[in-house]
């Protein structure tokens, strides 16, 4: 099922396959997902150019566009 969704070109069909996989995982019960959290980052107002991402924490930390307005 995981391979099937991976090979699917049609995004709507792929989503159905991904949801069906999610149901199977919940039935399996070996790794219950408790919740999806939100977490915070704060910066001083003179830090500019930093754009936090909303759907992963690992992809937006190149930091080459960040600058200090001091």
């Amino acid at each position, binding site marked *: 099922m995981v391979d099937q969704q991976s090979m699917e070109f049609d995004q709507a069909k792929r989503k159905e396959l991904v949801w069906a996989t999610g149901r199977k995982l919940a039935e399996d019960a070996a790794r219950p997902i408790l919740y999806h959290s939100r977490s915070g980052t704060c910066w001083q*107002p003179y830090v500019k150019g930093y754009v936090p*991402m909303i*759907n992963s924490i690992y992809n937006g*930390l190149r930091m080459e566009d960040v600058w200090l307005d001091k």
Partner: protein
Amino acid sequence: MTRILRTLAAGVLLAPLFVGSGAFAQKSGGVLKVYFFDSPASMSIHEEATIAAQGPMMGVFNNLVMYRQDVPQSGLQSIVPDLATDWSWDEDKTQLTFRLRPGVKWHDGKPFTAKDVQCTWDLLTGKSAEKLRINPRKVWYKNLEKVGTNGDYEVTFQLKRPQPAFIALLASGFSPVYPCHVSPREMRTHPIGTGPFKFVEFKPNESIKVTRNPDYWKKDRPYLDGIEYTIIKNVSTGVMAFAARNFDMTSYYFLQVPVLKDVKNQAPEAICELLPSNVNRNVMLNREAPPFNDPELLRAAALSVDRKAFVDILTAGKGNVGGAMLPPPEGVWGMPPEMLKTLPGYDPDVPKNRAEARKIMEKLGYGSDKHLAVSVSTRNIPPYRDPAIILIDQLKEIYIDGQLEPIDTAQWLPRLLRKDYTVALNLTGNGLDEPDQTLYENFTCGAEGNYDG
């Protein structure tokens, strides 16, 4: 094979518009000071699974492609060139060819070529003589047959079967290109990249420092002279230091809701963002060993969970109940809420779920006079410990007595990989919002992130 779908990446077209709109205001110089939450085991992104190493090191490297840094929701539509200048798929999506940027140098002055790309993915797929000590994302590339080079500036990823979203994996911050000429051992302590910042030093439990790469191939970047990460494990100490303006930023994506309120009280001028981060809290029940090798016990434990209580207590109601994929609207692939409620254990009628769980436990020989004692292992930092304590409280409802076992960061991943736990409260941070990452890495047989089976 005829190459079609030659991609003129959106970023190539849009970037000048974006940069042009505010370029006049940007200033160069200064060192960004960040208080940082933890001390990683090494500096090698390819051997690490947490933001503790990946965050500070992302700027030391480049990928072939990356997600636009100014677009909050990363996805296929926001992938732009990095060390690759463009890319193309063949018709059946099994060959992905990148043309590479000429003239790029590693931080030690050696030239970047196609050979480095080939070396990196040979290392990740276990084909090279050099080996990674830990390879947390090997499964991402189980469909990769080989990487071929065509001269110094072209590479082709040959896949075993079609995988339209393969390029999404390459755009992750976990997919930097490593140099052929530096060993995995050296990359752990002194990484060499091509990125905007050069590694300076890592003092465990003290600091991580990177400095501006004056020879960066993107001529007007970076703006900063460097970034200094000061490791402060105590959250209150870090927050107080930030409020006193000793730091410019808090640790990335680290502050929980109550702490964020403290920051806003102490530093009202600070800019704070509370965002879904595609990190879920989950319980891993080790079904390869007693007692959770019994599927009925697994089912009972799953039925004990009150997800709304976690969300209400730990996120002041701002988190989300969800499944394996990040819930919408921020997540692209998560189930709609109505569908989610129909999953086993997701019925909002918690008393009913727990009554069923207790019946299962009683059939297994447990009850109010005979509880099951288990260790609940977790990483010894608040985002892990806090939900572990609530989990222990919830398990009591079905005759399971959990004992908290806090584990240092450096030992956490090795413990999981050895399956050295009975119940583990884990955070799963997904490298990207993409089923080919989440499902393969965490839920397929033999996957490094599939710690529970």
